[in-house]
């Protein structure tokens, strides 16, 4: 199999020192220090095929950024092997980075004081992109991202959303087959987010660009990625299809009833005695939620029984959101076999 990213037993440890508290502690720190080793990434393995869009998620400090930095050649792994685009990112750094694009949501790639256009021109030189290629390719990128009007402004005058679009364009100047995005939508408003997602989809389709994305915003992942990799305390706890994650962890359906009058738990339990239902009271005696398995017979059965004997004002079906699923996974700490 030909993988664009092939990582085996990747590990990164950081040595850090713990400061002692208070004035006395600080004095002691002058002479001896407590060193401790923190494992940020604990021997992970992952393979990504060309053209995939993969979401890389995890809580703060789970090791996401550290992994991305090792994959992009910024950090040297403590142990393990990394092959990205067929190269060792750190050893062949200068050659390697020509084949990737990187966007850090919280760090600008562009030069603060000069116009966006000038930044692009500088990067074009840096990546040794030919004039002909630059013109056709960038024209496309610029028009898709709709940043023509921004090109003559200095970066410091752009809003966050405008800047992020320019950052994306800058990362694509050399049309890399692989794009790393670290929190690309952080702090952006919904419209800009949508625009950026649309754009990413488009370049993925058009150029077959492989995209590895870390984000806090799961809606990004839902919109873009078929595959997610979940990281917790430096270990991969889930690697697979987003859809499957939902199915295994979706925990069935919830039906919210609002009745025209107060109903007792006993009445409801008697009504649905033939099914496995957990009833929970809502805001008042007239609103109840039934949690059931995601099965069409059960769903129609329960609704039928209830509706036929009690008058209802409102009825809502709710599916567990991805966010809830992920919260559940982290709370339980490990993944259930699916």
């Amino acid at each position: 199999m030909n993988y664009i990213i092939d990582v085996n037993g990747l590990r990164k440890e950081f040595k850090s020192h713990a400061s002692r508290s208070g004035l006395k502690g600080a004095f002691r720190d002058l002479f001896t220090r407590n060193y401790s080793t923190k494992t940020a990434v604990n021997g992970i393995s992952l393979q990504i095929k060309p053209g995939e869009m993969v979401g890389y998620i995890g809580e703060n400090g789970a090791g996401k950024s550290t992994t991305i930095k090792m994959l992009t050649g910024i950090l040297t792994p403590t142990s393990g092997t990394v092959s990205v685009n067929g190269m060792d990112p750190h050893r062949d750094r200068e050659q390697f980075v020509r084949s990737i694009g990187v966007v850090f949501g919280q760090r600008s790639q562009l030069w603060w004081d000069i116009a966006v256009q000038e930044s692009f021109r500088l990067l074009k030189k840096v990546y040794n992109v030919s004039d002909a290629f630059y013109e056709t390719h960038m024209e496309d990128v610029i028009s898709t991202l709709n940043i023509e009007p921004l090109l003559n402004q200095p970066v410091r005058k752009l809003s966050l959303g405008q800047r992020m679009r320019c950052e994306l364009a800058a990362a694509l100047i050399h049309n890399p087959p692989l794009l790393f995005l670290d929190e690309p939508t952080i702090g952006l408003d919904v419209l800009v987010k949508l625009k950026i997602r649309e754009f990413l989809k488009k370049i993925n389709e058009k150029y077959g660009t492989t995209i590895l994305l870390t984000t806090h915003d799961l809606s990004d992942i839902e919109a873009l990625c078929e595959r997610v990799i979940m990281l917790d305390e430096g270990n991969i706890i889930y690697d697979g299809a987003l859809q499957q994650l939902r199915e295994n962890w979706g925990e069935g359906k919830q039906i919210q009833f609002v009745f025209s009058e107060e109903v007792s738990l006993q009445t409801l339990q008697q009504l649905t005695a033939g099914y496995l239902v957990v009833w929970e009271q809502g805001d008042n005696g007239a609103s109840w939620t039934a949690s059931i398995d995601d099965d069409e017979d059960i769903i129609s059965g329960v609704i039928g029984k209830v509706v036929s004997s009690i008058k209802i004002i409102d009825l809502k079906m709710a599916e567990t959101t991805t966010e809830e699923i992920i919260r559940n996974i982290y709370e339980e700490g490990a993944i259930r076999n699916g």
Partner: protein
Amino acid sequence: MSYVSIFFQYASQYLKTRLTYRADALVEIISDLLSQAVNLIFILVVFGHTSLLSGWSRDEMIFIYGFFLVPFALFGAFFNIWDFTDRYIVKGEMDRILTRPIHSLFQIILERMELESLFGAVTGIVIMIVSASQLHLTFHWYDLFVFLLLAFSGAMVYAGIFISLASIGFWSDSRTDIMPMMYNIGNYGRYPVNIYNKVIRWVLTWILPFAFVGVYPSAYFLGKEEWYTYTYLTPVIGIVFFFISLFLWNKGVTKYRGAGN
């Protein structure tokens, strides 16, 4: 070579930015001139109380200072990365640098260059010409090339020391006062080293070889033959120290820990 064309690309961007903030560039040049004036004043005041300093006359001292300004200006224009740890390690700008296909040190030199420092070289040359005429020095046609070689070597010495110091940042991002203080020590190279005791002379020659930026190369033009061995060593020391620093830098990059860790 593409590095050359990238250099000019950056330089032209730099000039554009600088021209937008002309007043600041002007203040910077003036402050450079001021600092050069202060150093000259120091020499002049000192020679108001003595006529010879361990065998060196006032005009010779001034000539050494003038020469020193040339490599120092080259250093200031391209290798003045005293805030490297703060800017690139602590604030994590190094992340960005490392995602680009150019040698990391070269990128930082491009980003941090301060071309207005080159005015210092002009001042230095003027000072040298004035004191040389006071001293009635004579030059050969090839002395120009010797001068260029020695000045570049001196700049390499300076660059080597400061790049080595910057590399420490890869291992420890603690804030240190080493950089600013090193400027002070660097200044001792512009006084004749024979005024110092053996230990300091040795340090200034072999450990922090600032003597190769000022007094040793100047000795050649001043015709002080007893120092010629050191004059000839200048390019060697420059290359050796520069390569040591490159080695340390490349080693350091593999130890980079990233921001926020």
